């Protein structure tokens, strides 16, 4: 049957049915009941729905088993999952007769699957298997996994099917108007993951009408190796006079849906709100259209749950971040042994920011439970990063576990001919649709020369292809060996890259940092070699993403070209620099005053202290620096903030730079000029019951920078404590903040209490819910933000 459906798809567009749920509701099913149970009680209604769809022209109808899994049925206290599925599929079979095809329908469980939810992945697989067994027993022709909002649940369902039968399987996810599922999975990543995992057709259903779905199909089409499916709603439902109305009429629906075929869909039907009438019009529209062939036979692409990378023939070298590897990292080893993953997550994020497109993941630490740790790391990274992963382990079991759980298409690092690794790992790659790195090692001996490597690579690629792995899925590790140990090896590696690219037509990878092992200034050799390898056609480099910008360095180049035997000249040149730092310092032509001003304007707090010390050393008076450079810079920042030309991070960065600068200037300032006695004292507090104090802390920072003496009492400060502090410090101004309406009222209480005690200070208030009217009502002044608070404090 699988081949028969595939053959049909080569000849024509296959028409799927329309909505079952809304159609059943139209025919008397009340809201709130279990649809599966209601259909078992009213089989004739269901037969009529199926028959009407066949009569309208559908080639395939879905069984009414969308919610017939253990979790959904248990909501209605139904336990016999197998029997419900079998009986409902038999009803569909009855309606289909001999010519119609029946698709066993599998919907989501409503729970979220590990690592995105609390339903264990294996439990999810088992739940779907239970349903699939019932559908298969009834003799469905194909299976359809539909309306999935989570790629991991779709994977669990697909694996359940594949582990039970070799049957044509469609998988469709539901993407919103923005082209993402509720879990943030996007169409192309989902397609890459599912088609490599063995789905026979992939696409989208529900959520949107045909026009919005068009964008998803268009996005998928260039990367599809399998037929595409579209099953849109009859537009977006609207509530009109208390009725749910799907506004798209059959004629319009069919006309727009036709575009889906032109965009690449091979199977077309309708979801919520569509009726046999919609399918009838659709039939008329698609009758004479022959489907386009799938865009390609295989695809070199990797995916995560929410991201993907497609590797073309002429990419720039793609960097695989190497840092999630405990080798030589004691802190990471200790963390992994304790089951902690803070460093793993941090390395993932920093490498992503630095430009890595994939992340290599290795958890090999002596004494560790590698399988368990790999599971934890995969789960954590699935939530942390959108970059696809490279599963790096010497153990087959670790790789198998990782591939099963990983919610995307991973790259195996690596497959070699050592022992029985190749057939076992090839089988895993095939089952989970993973790509693989081929390491040209057959025994203990490393092939040093290009010729040795060429022969071995050719033989191993042939073995992998025989095991069913397409060439597009094989990445050859061309072995970068340390030039310090193997002079001339860089040239052999470059020759191998060129041969793999031009003759073998395979993509290549290197572990970049191996090349510079044992030499000083390794980053120079790495960067020069990466540039040389890129020119020969290298596809991937496992590297520190910080170390990958091209560099021109004659000494490194000569070493790599084997023109500096033993690296004598290179070592001579760079050994000193390794000990005394790298780059020569730039000559600075900017005046110290300008530098201080710019530092505050741009929020540069690192060098401002040195600039001030330098300016004072060159004769500048500290008070002059303060009054003519630093304060004007800060005032200008305030003005830009008020005009919204600066926003909060810039304002604060400038304030921090000023604070650093002030620390340096303060000891030099003469008391007579900016004496303590002339500076206003401000008491700040977030009132009782309120714990939100970040706004108040920003105000404190700004006030200090403008020369005020700030006494900060903190957050959740009682009325009595504030009054006592006023008595003790005798401030010129008291600043109060509150975020919530319930705590704002305490501001008035503080003002009253202070007045009752005869205290003379002025009050200013602020916070998200406070406004000037409220401030007036309690006898305080109001500042909307930190800049206004400074101006107000100066005025009061």
């Amino acid at each position: 049957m699988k081949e028969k459906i595939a053959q049909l798809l080569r000849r024509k567009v296959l028409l799927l049915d329309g909505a079952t749920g809304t159609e059943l509701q139209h025919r008397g099913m009340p809201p709130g009941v279990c649809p599966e149970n209601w259909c078992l009680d009213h089989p004739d209604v269901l037969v009529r729905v199926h028959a009407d769809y066949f009569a309208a022209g559908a080639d395939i109808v879905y069984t009414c088993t969308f919610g017939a899994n253990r979790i959904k049925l248990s909501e209605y206290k139904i336990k016999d999952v197998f029997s419900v599925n079998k009986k409902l599929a038999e009803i569909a079979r009855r309606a289909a007769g001999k010519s119609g095809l029946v698709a066993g329908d599998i919907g989501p469980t409503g729970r979220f699957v590990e690592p995105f939810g609390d339903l264990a992945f294996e439990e999810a697989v088992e739940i779907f298997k239970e349903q699939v067994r019932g559908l298969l027993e009834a003799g469905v022709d194909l299976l359809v996994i539909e309306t999935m909002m989570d790629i991991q649940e779709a994977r669990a369902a697909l694996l359940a099917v594949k582990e039970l039968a070799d049957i044509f399987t469609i998988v469709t996810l539901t993407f919103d108007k923005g082209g993402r599922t509720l879990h943030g999975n996007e169409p192309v990543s989902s397609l890459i993951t599912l088609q490599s995992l063995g789905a026979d057709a992939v696409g989208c259903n529900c959520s949107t009408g045909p026009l919005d779905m068009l964008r998803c199909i268009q996005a998928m089409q260039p990367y599809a190796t399998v037929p595409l499916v579209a099953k849109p709603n009859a537009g977006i439902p609207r509530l009109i006079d208390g009725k749910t109305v799907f506004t798209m009429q059959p004629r319009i629906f069919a006309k727009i849906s036709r575009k889906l075929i032109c965009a690449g869909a091979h199977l077309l039907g309708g979801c919520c709100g569509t009726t046999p009438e919609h399918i009838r019009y659709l039939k008329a529209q698609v009758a004479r259209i022959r489907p386009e062939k799938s865009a390609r036979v295989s695809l070199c692409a990797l995916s995560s749950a929410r991201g993907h990378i497609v590797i073309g023939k002429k990419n720039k070298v793609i960097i695989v971040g190497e840092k999630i590897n405990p080798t030589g990292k004691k802190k990471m080893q200790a963390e992994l042994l304790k089951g902690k993953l803070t460093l793993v997550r941090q390395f993932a994020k920093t490498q992503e920011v630095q430009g890595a497109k994939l992340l290599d993941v290795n958890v090999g630490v002596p004494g560790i439970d590698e399988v368990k740790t790999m599971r934890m790391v995969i789960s954590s990274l699935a939530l942390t990063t959108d970059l696809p992963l490279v599963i790096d382990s010497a153990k087959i079991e670790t790789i198998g576990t990782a591939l099963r759980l990983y919610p995307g298409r991973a790259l195996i690092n690596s497959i070699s001919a050592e022992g029985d690794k190749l057939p076992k790992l090839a089988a895993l790659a095939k089952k989970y649709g993973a790509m693989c790195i081929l390491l040209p090692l057959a025994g203990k001996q490393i092939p040093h020369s290009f010729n040795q490597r060429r022969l071995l690579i050719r033989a191993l690629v042939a073995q992998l292809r025989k095991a069913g792995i397409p060439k597009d899925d094989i990445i050859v590790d061309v072995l970068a060996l340390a030039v310090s140990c193997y002079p001339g090896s860089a040239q052999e590696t470059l020759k191998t890259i060129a041969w793999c690219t031009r003759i073998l037509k395979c993509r290549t990878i290197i572990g970049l940092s191996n090349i510079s092992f044992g030499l000083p200034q390794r980053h120079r050799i790495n960067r020069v070699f990466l540039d040389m390898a890129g020119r020969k056609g290298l596809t991937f480099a496992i590297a520190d993403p910080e170390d990958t910008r091209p560099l021109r360095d004659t000494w490194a180049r000569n070493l790599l070209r084997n023109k500096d035997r033993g690296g004598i000249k290179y070592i001579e040149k760079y050994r000193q620099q390794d000990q005394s730092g790298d780059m020569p310092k730039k000559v600075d032509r900017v005046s110290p005053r300008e530098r201080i001003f710019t530092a505050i304007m741009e929020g540069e707090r690192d060098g401002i202290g040195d600039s001030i010390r330098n300016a004072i050393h060159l004769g500048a008076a500290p008070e002059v620096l303060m009054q003519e450079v630093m304060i004007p810079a800060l005032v200008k920042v305030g003005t830009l903030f008020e005009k919204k030309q600066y926003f909060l991070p810039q304002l604060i960065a400038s304030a921090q730079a000023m604070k650093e600068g002030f620390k340096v200037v303060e000891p030099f300032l003469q008391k007579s000029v900016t004496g303590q006695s002339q500076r206003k004292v401000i008491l700040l507090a977030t009132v009782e019951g309120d714990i939100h104090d970040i706004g108040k802390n920003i105000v404190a920072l700004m006030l200090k920078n403008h020369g005020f003496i700030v006494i900060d009492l903190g957050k959740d400060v009682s009325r009595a404590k504030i009054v006592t502090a006023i008595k003790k410090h005798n401030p010129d101004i008291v600043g109060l903040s509150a975020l919530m309406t319930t705590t704002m009222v305490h501001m008035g209480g503080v003002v009253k209490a202070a007045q009752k005690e005869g205290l003379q200070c002025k009050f200013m208030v602020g916070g998200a819910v406070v406004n000037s009217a409220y401030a007036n009502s309690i006898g305080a002044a109001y500042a909307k933000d930190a800049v206004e608070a400074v101006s107000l404090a100066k005025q009061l």
Partner: protein
Amino acid sequence: MIKPRYFRNIIITPRHQEIYKRLGYRHGVTGILRKQKYLIERYIQEAGPLLAICAGFQRLVIVKKNKTSIVLSGGVRFRSRLLVRLLRDCDEMVCMAATAGKGIVEAIQKEQKKDFVRAVIFDAVASVAVDACLDWLQNYIAQGLQRQGKQLLGKRISCGYSDFSLSNQKIIYRMLKLKRCGITMTKQYMLIPEKSVTAITGIITAKI
């Protein structure tokens, strides 16, 4: 009454546009240097792993409505004209809550002493993430309702807004058993961790 449902490990990617907006960025007006932008983006990235989102919701049947209050099955009553207006056509109500977790709030506190820029960016990321989480919950509930012939309102209101008193947070806290999400509540009805929020929306059962 359906039991509350909880979600952990939801991937919420706070929209950068929203974070910038929250920090006061105005498109076409605010200018940022490349190095400043790089730093801000880095801090936004750093905030991501610190988020430990947990969310929960519960559907509740409305048994009685008048101009000023709504009574739910079980006798719980909310008094608010605004809430009554929002739930005018609804026969069910949804109580929701979300938290960004303890980690990010601790990091915000810590960073205020070290690098205030990082602190305000973390603060904005957490706020936007919690809002985005409620959006996510609403989308999730709406998708499930569609096949039941029901619709979820797009709007929601939170305690403390207009005449919907903050003290109602106590009722929502109890109903949703928010301790399960690691949330506690102060005497002034404030949620801890600070970056936590509750909200209410409604369900309309449509006729076919």
